[in-house]
């Protein structure tokens, strides 16, 4: 008889234990994700100090000959042209071939696909809460240039906030053509307000 009575009590306590453990685990996971998100995210509206002729960390989104899309590397404005160097990849846009330079802003989620999957795994909609904090603003640098045959190319880079305008200034100083002057670059492309 004690065994029959004791069984449900034991099961209930086990269930309580399991629920408590699950809750604690979920909270820990949520906190860990929030911590990671805060590490990744840059504070909005706090542009980094533009560097001089030294390289700027950038991501080549697409368009540069000989470099795969979404490759991270270093972007440098030199007298020969805009130079992008990544591990195992290198591309240059000659100054004389540049037809136009545009800058803009973009807001994106940090952490890539892996972090996205982790966020999806967070219970009780915690992933959505994390998404609210795990975004960053970046500058986009778009360059239109011509190849040797006169064919139009476009290359898009993302650089840390505040760096695109500085790079554009450097390129214009070196002789590149830009239809919109550096100083009066409008921020109409800024999607920050929508993000």
């Amino acid at each position: 008889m004690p065994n029959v009575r004791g069984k449900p009590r034991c099961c209930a306590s086990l269930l309580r234990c399991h629920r408590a453990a699950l809750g604690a685990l979920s909270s820990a996971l949520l906190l860990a994700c929030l911590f990671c998100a805060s590490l990744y995210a840059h504070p909005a509206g706090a542009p980094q100090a533009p560097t001089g002729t030294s390289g700027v960390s950038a991501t080549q989104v697409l368009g540069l000959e000989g470099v795969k899309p979404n490759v991270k590397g270093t972007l440098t404005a030199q007298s020969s042209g805009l130079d992008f160097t990544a591990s195992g990849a290198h591309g240059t846009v000659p100054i004389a071939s540049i037809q136009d330079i545009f800058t803009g802003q973009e807001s994106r989620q940090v952490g890539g696909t892996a972090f996205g999957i982790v966020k999806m795994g967070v219970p009780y909609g915690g992933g959505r809460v994390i998404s609210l904090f795990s975004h960053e603003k970046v500058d986009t640098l778009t360059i239109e240039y011509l190849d040797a045959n006169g064919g139009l190319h476009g290359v898009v880079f993302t650089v840390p906030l505040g760096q695109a305008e500085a790079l554009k200034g450097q390129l214009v100083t070196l002789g590149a053509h830009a239809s919109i002057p550096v100083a009066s670059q409008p921020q109409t492309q800024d999607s920050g307000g929508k993000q």
Partner: protein
Amino acid sequence: MKPKRKLFSAVLAGIAAPALLLCAVNLAFISAGFAEEKMQTTAWAIQVEPVQAEEGQLPPDFSMATYENLITQLVKTDKFQQVFRKGDRQAEGVPNLLVLHMTLLKFDRGSQTKRAVTTVAGATKVKVNLKVATRDGNTVVEKDVQGTVRFFGENMKATYDLAKSIAGTLRDTSLPAPSTGVGQ
């Protein structure tokens, strides 16, 4: 046992031989079909023009991303002999050249964060009117095509989706056979 084994191998050979023959015939038909399709699809070359939009309607990064993605996707289709960029001098001497024009109809930038938080809101949409014409202005293809990011991915992914849709549209469209003098 021995006669049984012989019978078994004879039956096996009797089944396997026709099956192999059937496979070979099928393969021959399939490869002939591919060759025929390849011959049909390589008659035209195409030159891609960037998206035409009113000033401020389409950000330059989206415009260039659409242009570059489209060139990549068109090359992948193997539908055209050559894919030229705007202004490419090599295209001037090419017979049977089609020119691809895109006019922006709608652009909604959306938000990756909104998509991640709400799932249903914040979609990025780019809609263009696609027009493929010969040099002398005969329209071969005209269609409205849209690229969208609804759930996952950065806003720029809409340009990839648009390029893929345009390339798919052109791949599935049967182009007229180029005649002498057409498009010259």
